[in-house]
């Protein structure tokens, strides 16, 4: 067997789990299994996601990382024939309980998608959409909230002069930051990001990554990524999935420097995936 080659990644000091104490558990996943018809896409997954930290889901395509992410705001409900066993607890409540209002849940668990998907409306209306859904009508309230959200998404300076121009006129990276602004405008506790930078160029990607590090001061972030370096750069905890199973979960520094499992090591060093 060849000697183990450590990946050349630098772990930002701020995200080292040992230097900042981990937050309290916010999301608890307990023995979660998910079936598409008879096929089991997720097998018996248990893990704990902590408050105001960034948790990354990594693994090869089809390993179930995005599926698990979509369990956290029940977007899988939209797919026919999906069945879930086990529980996902957010703040102590099982979100799969029959009396849970999935609409309320999604207001608290925001999501950013792989492909930026701004509505074909103005920049302003994109950010205000979720707020209006919640009944905010006063122009001054909306104006303030839009500015705060766009600033938090590091987009305000670029778009403040054309707030009422079409969102589709923005560049890919700007569109994705607009989607982040739209998600944080409704003040969720958790933001789910499904490969948010996979369609972007390196510069736009690095801006998104900076943004994630900034946002974690206020939000709990779960990010799915296939980019190993990205996971290493932005996350505090990393979960590695393979074929629908959770192979290893722990502090990012540990996963990338001294993984406990052979499969994790092979993956993070680029032997397969």
């Amino acid at each position, binding site marked *: 067997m060849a000697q183990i080659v450590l990946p050349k990644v630098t772990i930002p000091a701020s995200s080292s789990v040992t230097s900042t104490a981990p937050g309290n558990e916010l999301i608890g996943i307990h023995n979660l299994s998910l079936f598409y018809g008879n096929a089991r896409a997720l097998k018996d997954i248990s893990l704990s996601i902590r408050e105001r930290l960034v948790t990354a889901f990594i693994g090869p395509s089809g390993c179930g990382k995005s599926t698990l992410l979509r369990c956290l705001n029940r977007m899988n409900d*939209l797919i026919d024939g999906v069945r879930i066993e086990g529980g996902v607890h957010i703040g102590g409540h099982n979100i799969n309980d029959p009396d849970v209002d999935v609409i309320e849940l*999604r207001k608290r668990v925001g999501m950013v998608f792989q492909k930026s*998907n701004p509505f074909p409306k103005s920049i302003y209306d994109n950010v205000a*959409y979720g707020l209006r*859904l919640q009944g905010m009508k006063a122009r001054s309230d909306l104006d303030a909230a839009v500015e705060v959200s766009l600033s938090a998404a590091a987009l305000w300076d670029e778009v403040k002069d054309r707030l009422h121009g079409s969102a589709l006129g923005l560049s890919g990276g700007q569109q994705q930051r607009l989607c982040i602004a739209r998600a944080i405008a409704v003040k969720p506790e958790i933001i789910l990001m499904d490969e948010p930078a996979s369609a972007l160029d390196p510069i736009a990607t690095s801006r998104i990554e900076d943004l994630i590090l900034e946002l974690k001061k206020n939000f709990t972030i779960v990010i799915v990524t296939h980019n190993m370096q990205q996971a290493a750069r932005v996350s505090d905890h990393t979960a590695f999935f393979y074929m629908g199973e959770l192979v290893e979960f722990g502090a990012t520094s540990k996963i990338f420097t001294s993984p406990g499992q052979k499969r994790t090591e092979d993956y993070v060093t680029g032997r397969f995936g």
Partner: protein
Amino acid sequence: MKASLDELSRPSRHFRTVRFDFVSFFFTGLTGLATFLILAILAVILANILFNGLPGLSWRFVSTIPKKDFFDPATTGVLPMIIGTTFRVLVMTLFVIPVGVTTAVYLTEYAPASALVTRIIRAAVNNLAGVPSIVFGLFGLGFFINFLGRNLDALLHNPGPVWGQPALIWASLTLAVMTLPVVIVATEESLKAIPPGLREASLALGATKLETILKIVLPQALPGILTGGILAVSRAAGEVAPILFTGVAYYMASLPHRLNDQFMDLGYHVFVLSTQSPDIEKTRSILFATVVVLLLLTFTLNFVAVLIRSRVRKKLRSLA
């Protein structure tokens, strides 16, 4: 093995430069001829009608309410027919657009794809599209007039038939039933063209399904809905068979102004002029002119629909 492969590849070393393939040439020509013939048919029909009809067309002709004898080229006009046709298709849209759009929304946004009820609805839509227009006429007579209308009269204790007789409303409803598939198919097409990511984004922000449909999906689909509506209108404007027993009148002295009035109609007028004229040569000019008016009406509508559709398709392509 090697030797035989060499043999196989030998003939292809030289390209034959000139080889006249008669069969291909012949059949390409034949199918091309078929295409040309269809275009020629269209051109001949339109040219003939325009050539004969345009001279008879005048402002007086389209703005005159004719007397009882509308076969006289000097005094006749088609204003009541234009108004009758317009009214009947407008009233039709009031019924067919809401029902058609709602059905399309159900089929694309709510219906479980494999469920039996979804398949039955789809089969019903397809079936409806193939029902002969005269059968819709019979349905209108049997259901709307003889069943709904007469029972309504009985319910309201009307002394004579008020609703239980041919009327604008019944003709419009009959046409609405007939054009339902047109609206459903066009709306569905435009709903399917909306990227699913937009719906997901809205739902992930905590919008309900209904809010997502009303605020994101339908505004996006509006041009497609419009196209469906216009296509339905243009199809209905030219149909005569469904209104024969449900509302059209041979002659009316006044314009229709109530829903239970009968009405005159452009298409039916073309039928009357061309089959019941006392002297076909004398009425030739007004006959062709009436046809031109009818064609202008349906073609303008079709043209607008095609224009909207192509603009929407371009816009959607640029989004994707």
